[in-house]
């Protein structure tokens, strides 16, 4: 067998400021032309492993490093970063922060400029990398204005231009819509087939399995829990912790107890007159645009009623966030109107709308600021001038709902990402908003965490309707009772999930990629009558018998 490109032996690392090692006794190897998927829950040590391989540890991140890493047969312990960077290319999770050049060509040139290659060679390599990834037309564009998928490819081009033999990808799909993610995966497969060794860290295991990784390295608590082929992974992993193909879950869930039934919006279920009441939010012929981009929203007619759990789907740039910003009054329509409880948003301040409608932004770090969790949660009610004793009650209730009671004195910024996300929801719940609106509620969380989180959200007391923006069709299948589909500023479909998502060809036209769970649900719809999660499908009476 040929000499492995990556050879790691007994690697242990502890960050200087932490008592426990982040990695323990890691040993593995990877060959040229191999795709190794690295999976595991948040905090399991995946990113630390990547940092050891690309040399950032111990050069930029100090700590205690034991064990040995050979890349292409050479120990990297004493190599300078400049030398390592020519063997290993790394694409970080957020391309927005990795792109350093104002123009695409400057970005791709960055590493080559630092290596002081001759200008002619730099230009030749830029053209080569851009052509390889099919983005040569972006060469002179400003990087800031590129879409998420384009940014990802530009970041990749910048790394490929340095001609590494090994490529490390740290959650490359995290910020992409399904169509862009599929395109990125296609490119990864192509690079592997042409002989590159790719190590890919990714939460979206099911998506990566589509391009047939050669092996999977599953990590837990800084150690290797499993290393081997995909079939073997199915045997060791619990389908609740890692997202597996729906058919696989169906097979295995039959032997487990049926999942508990969720009490969706319990405050509405108790009330029987739901459908007779006026809509909580109503969009009438809403159009919106900027000087430079006139048709961001076109003729949108849309309602949010009591009892709705709406998933808003669509590609990046389809107008989903713009739609939601109109509901909260952050944007006002250029024509048409948005009514909240019958009142035009033009006559309401954002603060007034916030009494009815709570908006949870994608990243909690954009809103958390207070010294304690209590102050963070009291911020909204204080702005809305609730009485002091009422605020205390609201804060405590909200904390209880998100399961953070007793943490009111902790600084929110010291909590884990998942806890910060829960604080950001609680901060909105404390305002006693009746409608909860969430932008990408699952972003940045691992599968088990976000499923638990969504289970809890959907059962919140006092909430009358929920709307969430997502790229994840499966989330819409499992949790929504209505799906709104946006494409190029228009609301192109709105209805029950089983009606909107049944035409797979049309979904592809709207840049959505059908999932294995969707296909399974469509097959089983005659029996199930509605869309369900795979574990629930496994317990349908017809299947059981």
């Amino acid at each position, binding site marked *: 067998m040929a000499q492995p490109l990556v050879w790691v032996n007994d690697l242990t690392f502890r960050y200087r400021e932490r008592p426990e090692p982040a990695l323990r006794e890691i040993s593995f190897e990877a060959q040229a032309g191999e795709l190794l998927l690295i999976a595991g829950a948040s905090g399991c040590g995946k990113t630390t492993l990547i940092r050891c391989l690309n040399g950032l540890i111990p050069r930029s991140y100090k700590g205690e490093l034991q064990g040995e890493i050979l890349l292409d047969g050479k120990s990297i312990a004493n190599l300078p970063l400049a030398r390592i960077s020519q063997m290993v290319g790394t694409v970080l999770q957020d391309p927005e922060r990795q792109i350093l*050049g104002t123009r695409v060509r400057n970005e791709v040139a960055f590493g080559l400029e630092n290596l*002081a290659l001759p200008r002619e060679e730099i230009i030749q390599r830029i053209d080569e990398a851009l052509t390889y990834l099919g983005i040569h037309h972006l060469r002179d564009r400003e990087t800031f204005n590129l879409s998420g998928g384009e940014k990802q490819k530009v970041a990749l081009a910048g790394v490929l231009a340095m001609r590494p033999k090994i490529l490390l990808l740290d959650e490359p799909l995290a910020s992409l819509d399904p169509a862009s993610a599929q395109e990125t995966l296609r490119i990864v497969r192509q690079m592997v087939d042409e002989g590159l060794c790719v190590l890919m860290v990714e939460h979206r295991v099911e998506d990566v399995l589509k391009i047939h990784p050669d092996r999977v390295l599953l990590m837990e608590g800084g150690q290797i829990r499993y290393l081997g082929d995909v079939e073997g992974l199915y045997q060791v992993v619990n389908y609740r912790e890692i997202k597996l193909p729906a058919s696989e879950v169906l097979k295995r869930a039959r032997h487990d107890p049926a999942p508990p039934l969720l009490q969706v919006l319990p405050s509405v279920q108790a009330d029987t007159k739901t459908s007779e009441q006026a809509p909580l939010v109503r969009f009438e012929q809403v159009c919106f645009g900027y000087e430079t981009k006139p048709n961001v929203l076109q003729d949108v007619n849309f309602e949010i009623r009591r009892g709705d759990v709406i998933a808003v789907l669509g590609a990046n740039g389809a107008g989903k966030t713009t739609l939601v910003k109109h509901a909260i009054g952050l944007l006002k329509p250029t024509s048409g109107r948005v009514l909240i409880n019958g009142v035009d948003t033009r006559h309401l301040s954002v603060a007034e709308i916030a009494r009815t409608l709570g908006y949870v932004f994608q990243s909690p770090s954009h809103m958390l600021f207070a010294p304690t969790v209590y102050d963070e949660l009291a911020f909204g009610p204080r702005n809305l001038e609730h009485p002091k004793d009422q605020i205390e009650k609201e804060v405590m209730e909200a904390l209880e709902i998100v399961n953070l009671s007793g943490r009111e004195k902790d600084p929110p910024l010291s909590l884990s990402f998942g806890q910060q996300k829960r604080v950001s929801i609680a901060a909105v719940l404390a*305002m006693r908003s009746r409608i909860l609106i969430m932008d990408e509620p699952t972003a940045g969380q691992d599968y088990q965490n976000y499923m638990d989180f969504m289970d809890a959200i959907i059962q919140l007391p006092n909430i009358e309707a929920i709307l969430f923006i997502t790229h994840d069709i499966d989330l819409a299948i499992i949790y929504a009772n209505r799906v709104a589909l946006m494409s190029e500023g228009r609301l192109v479909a709105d209805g029950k999930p089983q009606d909107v998502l049944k035409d797979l060809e049309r979904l592809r036209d709207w840049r959505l990629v059908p999932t294995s769970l969707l296909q399974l649900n469509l097959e089983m719809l005659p029996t199930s009558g509605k869309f369900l999660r795979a574990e629930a499908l496994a317990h349908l009476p017809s299947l059981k018998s």
Partner: protein
Amino acid sequence: MLVAWRYRERRSLVQWFDPRAWFIFYASFLASTLLFWDMRFLAFFALIALLVLLTSGVSWREMRRPLLFIFAFITFFAFLTFLTGRGGIEVYRQEHLIRKVVFPFSLFGWQPTIQITWERTFFALSQFLRVFSLACMTIVIPYTINPAHYGITFRGLGLPDKIAYAIDLTMRFIPTFGRDFQLTLDAQRARGYELEKIRGGLIAQVRKMAPLIVPVTIHAILASEDIIDAMDLRAFGVGPRVWLETLQYRLRDKLLIGFSALLFLVCLTLSFLSFGKFWVPPIF
């Protein structure tokens, strides 16, 4: 969008020159203007600035908002100077009264009075011309200098690689931080936070800005960690670097640099010989 670069190629006097030559001219203009308080001298600089603005190729629609904002700002402060005589003490000793305005009411026993003097009037006008010239010269820069050229421009002007690239990086990340700020502002407004309602003294106002300042700062710190990683991973700072962009001086650039040097030397000499000090027309 809060911040976005408005640069594009246009028929512009600024873009006719190499950016290095233009920055040298800009620096010479700035230093020379600041040497004088004489309105007649300042009028000359204001004329040059106006000429640069009008030939910048930036349309009125593009720069209307920032220009009106800056104009209102300068006018307000020049008017304040006119009312109070603030700052003028350093350049004139005695004042000649044009008119004394006494308001027909009193506040807590104090009757507001404005002394309109020739010196105050001309000091305010001179101040206006000075700041106006500098503002006109500065405002055209983001519209006319290619953001991808800042690094190589300052490298070409003799700054080390690292500092020159830091300027490039700043240009790259200003729009990103602008967007982060907008996101935070939106997120807090959705929690009932109203920027317009902030009242109180300076410290109280800054404290009430915490919901904006803290998340934006934290984001900037987290982002900078990633940015540093990304730079390290692509061998930044290992040795002298090559710059993809190249700049070439042409005859016109050399002439502009020559003119800039001459302008500054002449102004420095004039100032040294006590020309261009504060001037009031000899009408009294």
